C-alpha cells in the first residue's frame, strides 16, 4: 500500500514535471513561430500588398516609448542616486570613495539602466499589449481582421515588436544618462566632486563595449516584452477573467525572462 502510494506520488511528480516541460517547450515554439511570422510579414508583406504600416509603428512607439519617459526617467534617476549613496557608503570603509564613479558607471550602463527600463516597460506596455489583444480576441476583433483579409500578426504584432525593439534601447540610453546625472549630483554634494570631473571619469572608465552591452540587452528585452505580451494576448480563453489572467501572466513572464536573460548576458559577457 505504502509502496503503491509512493509510486503514485512519484508518478504524479514526474507527470507534472513532464507536462510543465512540454508546456514550456510549446511556449518557446510559439515564440519562434511568432518571430518567424513577423519577419515574414515584414519582408514579404509589401510584395503581397500587405505592408506593415509605419503609422501603426509610430503610434506604438508613442505608446511604448514616449509616454513612458516620465516614469522611467524618475526611476533611473532614483537608481543612479541610490548607487552613488551605496557606493560611497561601501567604499568609505576602504577610504576609496573617490572611486565611486567606476562602480556607478559600470553598474548603471551595463546593468541597472537596461534592467529597470525593461522591467518598467514590461509592467506598463507588456501587460497593456496582453490586455488589448486579449480583449480583441474575446470580442472577435481578431476574427474580424482575418475575415477582412488583414493578418493580425502584420496589423498588430509587427508594429508592437518594431516599436519595442527601437524604443526600449532608446529609453535605456535615456535611463543611463539620467541615472548617471543623478549620481553625479549626489557625488557632487557628498564628495564635492564637480559634474565635469564625474563625467570625465565616467567617459574614461566606460568603453563602447559597455554601451553596446547595455543597449544590446535592452534590444533583446524589447523583443521579449513584445513577444510575451502579444502571445499571452493571443492565447486568452474565456471572458474578462481570461484577460486578467493573461495580463498577470504576461507581466510575470516578462520580468522573469528579463532577469534571467540579464543574468545570462552578464555571465557570457564577463566570462
Amino acid at each position, binding site marked *: 500500500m505504502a509502496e503503491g502510494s509512493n509510486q503514485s506520488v512519484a508518478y504524479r511528480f514526474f507527470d507534472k514535471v513532464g507536462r510543465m516541460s512540454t508546456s514550456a517547450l510549446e511556449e518557446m515554439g510559439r515564440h519562434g513561430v511568432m518571430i518567424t511570422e513577423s519577419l515574414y510579414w515584414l519582408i514579404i508583406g509589401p510584395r503581397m500588398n*500587405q505592408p506593415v504600416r509605419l503609422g501603426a509603428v509610430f503610434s506604438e512607439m508613442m505608446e511604448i516609448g514616449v509616454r513612458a519617459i516620465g516614469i522611467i526617467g524618475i526611476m533611473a534617476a532614483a537608481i543612479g542616486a541610490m548607487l552613488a549613496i551605496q557606493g560611497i557608503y561601501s567604499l568609505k570603509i576602504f577610504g576609496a570613495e573617490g572611486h565611486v564613479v567606476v562602480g556607478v558607471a559600470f553598474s548603471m550602463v551595463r546593468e541597472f539602466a537596461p534592467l529597470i527600463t525593461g522591467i518598467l516597460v514590461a509592467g506598463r506596455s507588456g501587460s497593456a499589449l496582453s490586455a488589448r489583444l486579449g480583449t480583441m480576441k474575446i470580442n472577435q476583433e481578431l476574427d474580424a481582421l482575418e*475575415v*477582412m483579409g488583414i493578418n493580425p500578426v502584420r496589423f498588430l504584432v509587427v508594429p508592437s515588436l518594431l516599436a519595442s525593439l527601437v524604443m526600449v534601447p532608446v529609453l535605456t540610453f535615456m535611463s543611463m544618462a539620467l541615472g548617471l546625472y543623478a549620481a553625479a549630483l549626489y557625488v557632487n554634494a557628498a564628495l564635492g566632486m564637480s559634474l565635469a570631473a564625474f563625467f570625465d571619469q565616467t567617459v574614461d572608465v566606460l568603453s563602447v563595449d559597455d554601451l553596446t552591452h547595455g543597449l544590446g540587452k535592452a534590444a533583446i528585452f524589447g523583443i521579449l516584452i513584445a513577444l510575451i505580451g502579444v502571445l499571452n494576448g493571443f492565447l486568452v480563453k474565456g471572458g474578462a477573467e481570461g484577460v486578467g489572467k493573461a495580463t498577470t501572466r504576461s507581466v510575470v513572464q516578462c520580468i522573469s525572462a528579463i532577469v534571467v536573460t540579464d543574468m545570462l548576458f552578464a555571465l557570457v559577457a564577463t566570462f
Partner: protein
Amino acid sequence: MTNQIDPGPSTVIEVRDLVTHYGTRQILNGVDVDIVEGEIMVIMGGSGSGKSTFLRHLMALQRPTSGTIKILGQDVWRLPQKKLFELRKKLGVTFQGGALFSSMTVGENIMLPLYEHTKLDRMTMEIMARMKLEVVDLAGFEDLMPSELSGGMIKRAAVARAVIMDPRILFFDEPSAGLDPVVSSQLDDLILRLRDAMGMTICVVTHELESAFKIADRITVLDKGNILFVGTVQELHDHPSERIQNLLNRRSEEAEIDADEYLRRLTGDKEEAEGMPR
C-alpha cells in the same frame, strides 16, 4: 423534397462531407450544404448543434477535420495564402457582438478594409464610408466611438463595415442576439434590403425562429452536428418529422414551463419531469 440541391453554376458555397472534432467530441458529422447565389440561407439549431463551428468553417477561420468547403468555386483550405486573402475580400462578416475596433471611430472602422486593400485617397474612403452608413441608417455617426453606440447601432455599423468592399457573400452570426424585438426586426429588414438592393448572397446563423422565418429563402437545420433539414420556410413548416416539429415548437413549449416543473428538472426528478420538452 430533397435535402440538397444539385450544385450548379450559381452555387457560391459548396460544403461536402464536413466533419469536425474537438478532441474526441464530434461537432459536425458529415455536413453537406449548397448555398446558391442571391439567396438568404439561414442556418438554425439549438446550443451545441454545431452551427457556430459551421460558420467558422464557412468563413475560413477554422480548418475542419475533413471535408471540403468551396467558396466561389475555390477550395478554401487548398488555396495559397495570397489567394485566400483575395477570396476574403469578397466575403463580409457581421459578428455577434459587432467586433468593431474599440480604439477606432465608427468611420475608421468602416474605412479599414478600404485602407488596407485599396489605394483610394482618404476623401474617397470617407465618402464611401458615409454612403454605407446611410445604407444602415447611421448617417452622421462616423465620428463616434463604438462605446458611444447602442447594441443595435453597433451591429448596423458592423454591417456597414462588412459591405464596404461590396462583398459577394455576407455572413451574419446571431444578428438578433442581445437585441430587443423592434431593433431585431429592423436588422432583419436591413438584411432583406441588402439582398434586394445589392444582390448579395447572405448566410445567417441564428437560433431565433421569428427572425429566420422572416428573412430566409431557405433554412438549414443542424442538430448535434447533423443536418436535419434543408429547404424553404414553407417546407419546414410542412415537414412531417416529429423531431423538426418539436424543434419548431420548443420555444413555445418552454415558455409554458412553470417554475415548479423547471425546479424539478434541475433537481433531476426525472419521473415528475417526464413528458416535458427538453
